[in-house]
């Protein structure tokens, strides 16, 4: 497998009203070509800001350090002008709320053809033709009617399809989907997720799927990264993660979610997600961890390779299992 994007030791702080927030604390991850990588975690774990850092769409009160290597270049060092060539072209993004990325005052036709025209340098007619093809590709019935509609005339699912069509218009090599189905009903969620997988086979891009829903991860992803309070705590192939979760946090998450197939007792994690203004020292999970050892309070465990397909950041596993 060829590496497509690699994040190395990404740190991110926000200056806020309440003080400095330590949002990302050394995140590492690699996305390979032609795979669906799921990034899971709870509110404030840093999964969304990780994707925002990739596109350098961070607010002005952010301080970033580390490396994000894409096609041999460190994105964090690129100028805004160079980023524009990557954003939307090589890396596209689909957000949770498509309404916020569409201008309510213009028809879909205008919004789509503008973007396509701008980037491909083609005439308006050609752009419209391309737009229609894209809408067909995302299984929207009656593309002509869609093009003549305003965003509010479309349902949430249709708007999300339009956003996916737009994201596809440049054959991106990476599609970042940030909670793309959270605002949608389950039946529509299923349609959109299946569509993304279908398009991925067709257009050969990788997907970075950001979600809080482990069910969605199980059904769509090839590999998964679990984040907690700004740290990557575990990365594994999806089946391995669900079958043999190693990090106590991952184990806790899996035993806390209900299963639609049968009623199983839920074992909630103790306590709450820590404040990033004053995160716990050492391993950030230690105050909630059932297996806490003295070392966890002082030393942050690094993400180590447990096997070729399984990485975990926890002192329980000491380091490389071969050692």
């Amino acid at each position, binding site marked *: 497998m060829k590496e497509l994007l690699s994040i190395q030791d990404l740190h991110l702080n926000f200056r806020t009203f309440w003080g400095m927030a330590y949002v990302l604390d050394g995140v590492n991850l690699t996305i390979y070509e032609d795979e669906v990588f799921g990034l899971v975690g709870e509110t404030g774990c840093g999964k969304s800001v990780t994707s925002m850092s990739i596109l350098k769409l961070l607010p002005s009160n952010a301080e970033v350090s580390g490396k994000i290597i894409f096609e041999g270049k460190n994105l964090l060092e690129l100028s805004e002008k160079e980023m524009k060539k990557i954003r939307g072209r090589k890396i596209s993004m689909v957000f949770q709320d498509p309404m916020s990325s569409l201008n309510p005052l213009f028809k879909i036709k205008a919004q789509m053809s503008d973007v396509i025209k701008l980037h491909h340098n083609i005439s308006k007619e050609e752009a419209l033709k391309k737009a229609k093809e894209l809408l067909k590709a995302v299984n929207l019935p009656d593309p002509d009617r869609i093009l003549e509609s305003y965003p509010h005339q479309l349902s949430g699912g249709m708007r999300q399809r339009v956003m996916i069509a737009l994201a596809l218009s440049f054959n991106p090599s990476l599609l970042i989907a940030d909670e793309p189905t959270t605002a949608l009903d*389950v039946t529509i969620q299923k349609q959109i997720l299946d569509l993304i997988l279908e398009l991925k086979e067709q257009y050969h891009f990788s997907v970075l799927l950001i979600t809080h829903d482990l069910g969605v991860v199980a059904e769509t992803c090839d590999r998964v990264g679990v984040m907690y309070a700004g740290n990557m705590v575990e990365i594994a192939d999806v089946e391995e993660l669900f079958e043999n979760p190693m990090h106590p946090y991952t184990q806790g998450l899996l035993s806390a979610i209900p299963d639609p197939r049968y009623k199983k007792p839920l074992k909630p994690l103790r306590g*709450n997600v820590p404040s990033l203004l004053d995160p716990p020292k050492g391993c950030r999970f230690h105050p909630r961890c059932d297996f806490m050892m003295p070392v966890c309070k002082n030393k942050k465990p690094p993400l180590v390779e447990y096997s070729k397909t399984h990485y975990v950041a926890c002192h329980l596993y000491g380091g490389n299992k071969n050692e």
Partner: protein
Amino acid sequence: MSELVKVENLKKYFPFKEGIFSRKVRYLKAVDGVTFSMEKGETLALVGETGSGKTTTGRTMLRLYEPTDGKIYFEGKDITKIPLRKFKKTRVQMQMIYQDPYSSLNPRMSIFNIIAEPLRELKYGNLEEKVLSLLESVGLRKEHMYKYPDEISGGQQQRVAIARALGVNPKFLVLDEPTSALDVSVQAQILNLLENLQKEKGFTYLFISHDLSVVRYISQRVAIMYLGKIMEIGSVEQIFESPQHPYTKLLLQSVPIPDPKDKKKRKKLILPGEIPSPLNPPSGCPFHTRCPYAKEICKEKEPEYVEVERGHLVKCHFAEVIK
């Protein structure tokens, strides 16, 4: 067991005008003839997609909306007949827990004042003691008493909202997606808390949700709503293990399952299309536009309920035919 709440042919129509200048008033039939009853101490889940009318049903049952038609019995009395002025006493026994805990707590009041407010109305003696015991019964501590809502986590906010409701000794609680704004690890805490409180105090819950995994966990009976009508109602086993209505079947198929091995076993069945606008509901069976088994009769005639098993009602012309 005895019956606590019963709803008969409940309807809630919202009037709206076609356009700014139009005189014609039309009605949005948010709830259109809903009938069910609830035993003391049981949890009935009301499940549906956006626009199915599940929340409106819950709110109308508490007369937060005045019903357009139909009867609501609480302890045998039809509460729609009680004038609003005299309704206070009954209303206190029927409480609601909201989806977004933060918006259900006044951000300018301390936790103590939030919980004490209804107690002051009831002229409680030792407020401090009572508030503390309420906090403890939802798993909070004294140190939380003088904090403000934005200083505690979402899960703790929901606990405070529950404690406040407990203070007035309700019998019936409408839980409107009480965990959907919370993280999965916290969701399990709240679900367990709700279950324990029910066991302790014999509460009756109407659990409104779109999340079938949660419904599977918390409820004894389930009602599936679609466009203001109940399509299928039965025990949780009946609905999840032998769903009869095509909508229920497809809805269950769409639920993501947190087990990657499961996806290979399952056949791919996607519920096509989207829920039609309740402003313009389809004729006959409301589901016929998306139903793979729809026949001519479904477009023309609204199906009656068929009791396929004891307590298992299905609103479908072909309930007994489709297997």
